């Protein structure tokens, strides 16, 4: 029974048991298999959860049966239990190990286009041989069919010439060419003074830090929908991908006792810049970055970053609209809350409806003046 007058607790326990019975209990092996073989899924969950913990993200995916909103919520809720112990040094792209970096703005760029790991140019053909147990198909799974070089594969014949760990910025070249405004001088700040959207109330207009943080942890699908609507012509921005990067970054923390910096671990990060030449006085830059590798989200997010600066953006591209409605945990949670009983609030509006019907449909009333009634039920 939906609202049991008795036995609600037993009902939810049985319901949860049935959920797990239908998908099998997660095991440690399954969690490790997910972490190793589904890194892009794990990245998406970690990025939206704002918690870099591949093993925990894989556990969340296994535990939720692959329901991504549930997985993100599991990880976010775990994050709520963790105190902030220290602040890492800023991760600057010149110190990251970049494995993929492309620009659509120019045919070639200083440092070169580095395709890196990507399925962009692969043939999207199901490798049905895998179902037959073919090993060859497995080894061939990620090839493009024409043997494109893979930047992450160490070429053992040339151990002394590793790929360049960092690359110059396309935007720097544009700044030196007078196409893009110079970066404003940043005052150095204590990390604790940087606004944090997970620790501060959301107020609008939002500080830029909040906007970039909100985009970093935004729902991939939500950002894509709003970004795509903008690209398709509902917004004012036609984005050009100035630079897209997938990297590994060391997280450097100062030791609380010795004062020495040390690496607390290595994380996957990605960032995107899009440019637009909309106002013809120079290029404008939109930016987004996130934990994990998630290219489609970042291109859409960087576009929205520009869109939200426009004087008269599409209503769906105002800062408040974008930040509130691309929040994965809040959006999904509120949507599914409509499964909760609403009979009290519904009864309250039915009461009005019945009175209005009684007023207008009573025998001596003129029915012609009846207007259609619309009312929002909270």
């Amino acid at each position, binding site marked *: 029974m939906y609202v049991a007058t008795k036995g609600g607790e037993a009902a939810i326990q049985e319901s949860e048991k049935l959920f797990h019975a239908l998908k099998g209990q997660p095991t440690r092996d399954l969690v490790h298999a997910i972490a190793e073989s589904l890194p892009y899924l794990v990245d998406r969950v970690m990025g939206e959860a704002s918690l870099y913990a591949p093993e925990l993200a894989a556990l969340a995916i296994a535990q939720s049966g692959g329901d991504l909103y549930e997985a993100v919520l599991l990880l976010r809720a775990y994050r709520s239990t963790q105190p902030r112990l220290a602040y890492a040094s800023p991760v600057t792209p010149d110190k990251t190990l970049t494995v993929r970096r492309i620009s659509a703005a120019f045919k070639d760029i200083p440092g070169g286009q580095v395709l890196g790991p990507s399925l962009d140019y692969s043939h999207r053909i199901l490798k049905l041989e895998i179902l037959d147990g073919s090993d060859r198909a497995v080894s061939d799974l990620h090839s493009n069919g024409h043997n494109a070089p893979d930047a992450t594969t160490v070429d053992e014949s040339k151990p002394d010439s590793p790929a360049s760990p960092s690359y110059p910025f396309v935007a720097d070249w544009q700044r030196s060419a007078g196409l893009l405004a110079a970066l404003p001088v940043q005052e150095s700040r204590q990390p604790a003074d940087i606004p944090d959207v997970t620790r501060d*109330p959301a107020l609008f207009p939002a500080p830029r830090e909040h906007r970039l943080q909100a985009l970093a942890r935004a729902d991939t699908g939500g950002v894509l929908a709003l970004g795509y609507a903008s690209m398709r012509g509902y917004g004012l921005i036609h984005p050009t991908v100035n630079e897209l990067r997938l990297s590994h970054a060391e997280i450097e923390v100062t030791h609380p006792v010795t004062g020495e910096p040390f690496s607390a671990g290595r994380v996957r990060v990605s960032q995107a810049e899009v440019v637009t030449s909309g106002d013809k006085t120079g290029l404008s830059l939109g930016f987004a970055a996130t934990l994990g590798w998630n290219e489609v989200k970042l291109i859409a997010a960087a576009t929205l970053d520009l869109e939200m600066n426009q004087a008269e953006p599409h209503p769906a591209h105002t800062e*408040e609209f974008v930040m509130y409605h691309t929040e994965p945990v809040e959006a999904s*949670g509120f949507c599914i*809350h409509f499964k909760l009983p609403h009979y009290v609030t519904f009864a309250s509006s039915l009461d009005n409806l019945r009175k209005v019907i009684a*007023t207008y449909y009573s025998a001596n009333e003129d029915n012609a003046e009846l207007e259609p009634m619309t009312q929002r039920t*909270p």
Partner: protein
Amino acid sequence: MTTTALESLALPREDYAYGFLDAFAKRELRRRTLKAIAIPGYQVPYASRELPIARGWGTGGLQVSLSLVGPESVIKVIDQGSDDSVNAANLRRFITRMSGAATTTDVLEATIIQSRHRIPEEVLREEQALVLQVPDPEPLRAVQSDSSKTHQMHADSDYSQLWLVLYEQLVRYKQYLQGASYPSLVNGRYVISPSPIPRWDTPKLHQAAHLTLLSAGREKRLYAVPPYTDVYPLEFSDVPFQVEDQRTWADAVTGVVNKFMNEIPQVDGTSAYEVSDSGYLDKLVAQQQGERQAFGATYYDDEGNFYKDGYLKALVRPQ
């Protein structure tokens, strides 16, 4: 020095902090709550942490409850009036698991009552806190979607557009159309959404002995109606605010009237009715079966009279 010696210096491992939230989050919530109490009806922004239940399912109320709860607390959780709905059971189970607090369905025994959209029928006391879950804290949202503008409108006490909405409803339908979350003026200063409690419950906030805390987790706002504070639903002086008209509805089991009812559609096309407040109904049923039960005074008596004389105008049938 051995590892064992190091371990002996550390506290035993605890998977979760008391009350789930870490101490910083609880401190923030308590400070914001104090501010909300100090400025009745003012929406205080707060950071709002994620909790292990879905957003929009009571995380705002739950954060406030977790910041209030102690081992001696007695928790009652209701959802649409019911203690036993799955969501209420789930929240109650979580608060108890994280705090060790006792639980009850009897409002007389509770120290903290977390509720989704109902205020119990029995009058709350001074030492009780009512925590209402709020889906949308902004009464101006329907007339102004930009929160920086609604902030200004609240600062200016500019509620003209809400009055206009009420006026348009009267012109078109000869009555107010707002169902639950009826906008109400608190302490003569701020208009609040009292959360989607039915209009039946709105008057219970006026000059109440208990503290009411309203918290919206998704929207990251909390506000309060402190004890003994004026709360008036918006109404024109010649067209009174009206609670739901359920005068002819009687509880199918106990025959009780003039309490807020759930309407239960029957297969033959008719309706049966049941008292919405399940904790109160349980006691009524137990008493009819011969068990002795303790009852508190109710906000509405058996004739439907509100306990504060003169606060509510008589119900009128539509003309």
